[in-house]
């Protein structure tokens, strides 16, 4: 906590410097400096700590913790689990990403109904949700490890192939697909750089940087949130939380990031 306060002062100083010399540097460089200044004390640590406690807390109708939850590397193994997701799970006979697997465990272990487990997928102003905290904690336990999604089970193959089709699917009033903004090198929208997710180097970097603490929103945003908000801007209807399409698309993007070093929760504008 003290370290966090110290970094906050550092951030304020860095911001003051930023404003003073804003006209001398390009806006893109400024954003990069701002990001680096903030990274010293990423508020995502608060979500990670809360998620760590939630993981061990006895909750739900069955009053048990999530500590026996199998995230893909066996019951209770959190370290490195995010690097193998999404993955096929025999108990549900489905491919699941982290968020959908957490829903499964909240239902099977803790006795929540699926509706209860999925009720608050994303935090907002004045609303801190347990899903964000659990996601922050579990992903932080894969920081520094290479992504290694298997993807060879027939259902994983199918999810990947369907995810690829979704990535290229153009429709809606703006004729947009994911590929419109994320399929070409060196593009930016306004001043925001757009990663080309078809370029292996950029795909690894981009996937490895989510979840992220969004400074502009004061929230840790999960990968499910990232996809949800991309589709909003794509002028699509609302992507349902842990829906099959969201998991298939995640499978496509996660597997394409294989070999990349996972480095999240990160911090973004």
């Amino acid at each position, binding site marked *: 906590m003290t370290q966090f306060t110290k970094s906050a002062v550092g951030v304020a100083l860095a911001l003051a410097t930023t404003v003073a010399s804003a006209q001398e540097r390009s806006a893109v460089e400024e954003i990069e400096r701002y990001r680096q200044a903030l990274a010293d004390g990423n508020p995502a640590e608060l979500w990670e700590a809360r998620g760590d406690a939630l993981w061990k807390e006895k909750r739900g109708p069955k009053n048990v913790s999530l500590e026996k939850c199998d995230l893909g590397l066996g019951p209770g193994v959190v370290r490195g689990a995010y690097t193998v997701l999404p993955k096929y799970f025999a108990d549900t006979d489905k491919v699941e990403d982290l968020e959908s697997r957490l829903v499964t465990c909240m239902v099977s272990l803790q006795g929540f109904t699926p509706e209860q487990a999925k009720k608050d997928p994303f935090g907002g102003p004045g609303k801190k949700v347990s899903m964000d905290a659990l996601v922050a904690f579990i992903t932080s336990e894969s920081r520094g490890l290479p992504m290694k999604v298997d993807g060879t089970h027939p259902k994983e193959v199918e999810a990947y*192939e369907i995810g690829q*089709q979704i990535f290229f699917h153009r429709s*809606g009033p703006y*004729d947009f*697909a994911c590929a419109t903004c994320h399929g070409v090198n060196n*593009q930016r929208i*306004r001043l925001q750089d757009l990663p080309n997710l078809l370029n292996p180097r950029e795909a690894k970097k981009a996937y490895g940087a989510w979840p992220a603490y969004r400074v502009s929103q004061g929230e840790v945003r999960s990968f499910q949130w990232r996809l949800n908000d991309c589709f909003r801007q794509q*002028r699509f*209807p609302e992507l349902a939380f842990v829906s099959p*399409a969201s998991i298939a698309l995640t499978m496509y993007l996660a597997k394409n990031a294989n070999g990349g070093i996972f480095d999240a929760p990160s911090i973004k504008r």
Partner: protein
Amino acid sequence: MKKLAYLGLPLAAILASCASVPTQEEYRAKAIAMMKASFNEKGQAKLDRIDQDELQKICSIHPGGHDMPKEVGERIEKAQQALIKYPADGKYLGDWKQGERIAQSGVGKQYSDNPKNPAGGNCYACHQLTKQELAYGTIGPSLYHFAKIRGFGADIQRYAWGKVFNSQAFTPCSSMPRFGHSGILTEEQIRHVVALLMSPDSPVNK
């Protein structure tokens, strides 16, 4: 060994022909069915936004027109050109100042937008237009000095109108939305945007 290899070949061939590896087309159909079951209607964004017209189908297979047979591209251009509605009074130019506001605004057609409010064109998201606005994107080419380079005549005005109304009529599988065809901008708004590009007084041409 030889005998085995001999037997192996036809076996592999039989397996390949029997194996139920779905084609790209089958995966596409599965993806669309899955999307229909994975999105919820919200605000103005209904599930029919997942449906595709002919152009969207072709451009999903050939992103950015990549690997698209020449005749397919020409067919798209022709079909989309027929969909452009030019102004009945032949007046292409509105007020460039209003055009600038439309070019700045990214509002429109999202489920979080109020459909009663007019949409923007969000031109700056992808294009450089003026010297003053530095926060421009690079998905599309720079349009700075648009008319100064191409000329201020009626033919270029008409081209600019058509391009904003339906970009696919000029560049098949372009990333640019069809602002007129898809009902994003009104005829009056397109006039203002064309004025921003074409007016000699516009900062675009300064």
